[in-house]
């Protein structure tokens, strides 16, 4: 009888101690809420493209820290939940840079939790341009994000976002205004160069028919005047019905589409199927939402995408 209570007490105690030990070990690792000094200006970004943009604009500034939310390792951001670490970061952020357009589904929660948090929506101007009707139309197709929010995939849109972030940061943190401005201009120049180059290399893309497996690539198609013959939005939770697949195959055959753009993580299986069934060639592009903590990674990723597109168009001509 006594043994039992002793046993329970010992069990719970040892578990608690193990827990405490675990906590002690792991507190060093993650984001420590205490570290932020008073003068430090903390910029928190919602996900990778925003993080890279901010790294370019404010990365090496004295007294400015740029941190990204511990974003999901897989999938899109739409159904991401904030972790405790994120909540801590947000509670101390001076400005929170987001993409907007419904990309950050958790934004409403964050706003509810931190009403004083200054939110800088990089895509605000782009999304307010989209006419209401178009957005509603998109919904009918079953996208849960309303409109296509992957605007960082379009070079001109991304440039708009970068300059919006530059302006917003200068307003929020006047002390570093000069630095932000010059860095923004430098970064924009680099992007502009890439865009000029891309337009030259992809001049032949005008009017070409393609099929997309991810709506993010719609912006690439738009930038270079390609015609989207069909689209399946493959996502982490997406279950494709047999009918949809059949319809897409029909479209590819009828319109003689030669190029299909997909993302390797979710489009691979489906891409293989399509390649087997039709003459269509599948190219796996980068949606630029994951990668190293390297300020140049957007530029590099985009350049690789352009190279792949060029290759795709060339091989189609060879057929």
């Amino acid at each position, binding site marked *: 009888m006594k043994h039992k209570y002793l046993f329970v007490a010992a069990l719970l105690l040892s578990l608690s101690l193990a827990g405490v030990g675990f*906590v002690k070990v792991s507190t060093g690792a993650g984001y420590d809420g205490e570290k932020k000094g008073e003068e430090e200006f903390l910029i928190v970004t919602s996900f990778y493209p925003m993080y890279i943009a901010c790294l370019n604009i404010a990365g090496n500034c004295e007294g400015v820290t740029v941190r990204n939310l511990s974003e999901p390792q897989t999938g899109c951001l739409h159904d991401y939940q904030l*972790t405790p670490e994120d909540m801590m970061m947000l509670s101390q952020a001076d400005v929170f840079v987001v993409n907007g357009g419904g990309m950050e589904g958790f934004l409403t929660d964050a706003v509810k939790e931190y009403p004083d948090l200054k939110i800088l929506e990089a895509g605000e101007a782009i999304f307010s341009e989209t006419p209401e009707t178009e957005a509603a139309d998109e919904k009918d197709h079953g996208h849960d994000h309303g409109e296509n929010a992957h605007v960082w995939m379009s070079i001109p849109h991304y440039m708009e976002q970068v300059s919006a972030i530059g302006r917003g940061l200068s307003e929020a943190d006047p002390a570093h205004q000069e630095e932000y401005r010059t860095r923004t201009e430098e970064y924009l120049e680099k992007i502009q160069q890439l865009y000029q180059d891309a337009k030259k290399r992809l001049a032949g893309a005008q009017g070409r028919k393609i099929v997309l497996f991810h709506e993010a690539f719609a912006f690439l198609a738009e930038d270079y005047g390609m015609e989207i013959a069909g689209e399946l939005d493959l996502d982490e939770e997406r279950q494709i019905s047999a009918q949809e697949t059949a319809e897409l195959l029909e479209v590819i055959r009828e319109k003689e589409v030669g190029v299909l753009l997909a993302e390797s993580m979710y489009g691979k299986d489906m891409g293989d199927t399509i390649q087997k069934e039709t003459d269509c060639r599948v190219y796996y592009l980068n949606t630029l939402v994951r990668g190293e903590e390297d300020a140049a990674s957007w530029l590099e990723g985009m350049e690789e995408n352009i190279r792949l597109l060029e290759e795709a168009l060339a091989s189609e001509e060879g057929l």
Partner: protein
Amino acid sequence: MDDIFSWLRFDFMKLAFGAVLLITPLFGLMGTMIVSRKMAFFSDALGHSALTGIAVGIVFGIGDTNLSMVVFAIVFALLLNKISSKHAESVDTIISVFSSLSIALGLAILSRGGNFSKYSSLLVGDILSITPKELLYLGILLAATLGFWCICSNYLQAASIHRALAKSKHIPVSLMEYLFAVLAALVVMLSIKWVGILIINALLILPAAASRNLSENLREYHFFALVFSVFSGILGLIISYYANVATGPAIVIIAAIIYFATYLYRRCAGT
């Protein structure tokens, strides 16, 4: 010690802590009744019906899917209870059929147009996003469960030991069973958003099962179940905070460790 409680600086952690303090005793109590009535599979099926409940709400255009979820779960629980009381032979098969049908229905409706990702948070649950109002609902539910437990626990126990004998003692056995089914539906539905479909049953079953390994009488059974449940809840929350993992699974892992420890204890003690 400062480090250990530093997490209470944040409001969302205070709310989550409150939620754990309400949910775990609730689950401890319900768990003891579910385990001793051999209804583990029943509560699992209930959890799965949450998806269907939401889907039904969407099909009928009900704005508040919480409502349709609760109503559907209650209907589902009553139906399950009725059917399983008639066919005592193959209860597990019947429940399995119902549970898989309901989850298939839910998935079919919710995945139309590729929308399922919106609901995937239901699978894992998110205790950190709980609001004060929802905390209040949980408090009311806990009070109701406590009331039910004080009045009916003995009756239910009697019925689960020997149904016919309990009936002969003028205990309203079927009424009790229906009431219990409804209560279980309410508890599961109101906490599923915070705990998640995939692990809600583990939280119900594990503390009671662990307690069963140790206890020699009903009082001990309930006492240990409560202690294990609350303990794993609090420790799980703290660990999940520092280790940056989802809270529900962390709680379940601790409850499982307790279960195995008590199991070994019983084996060694030879009782």
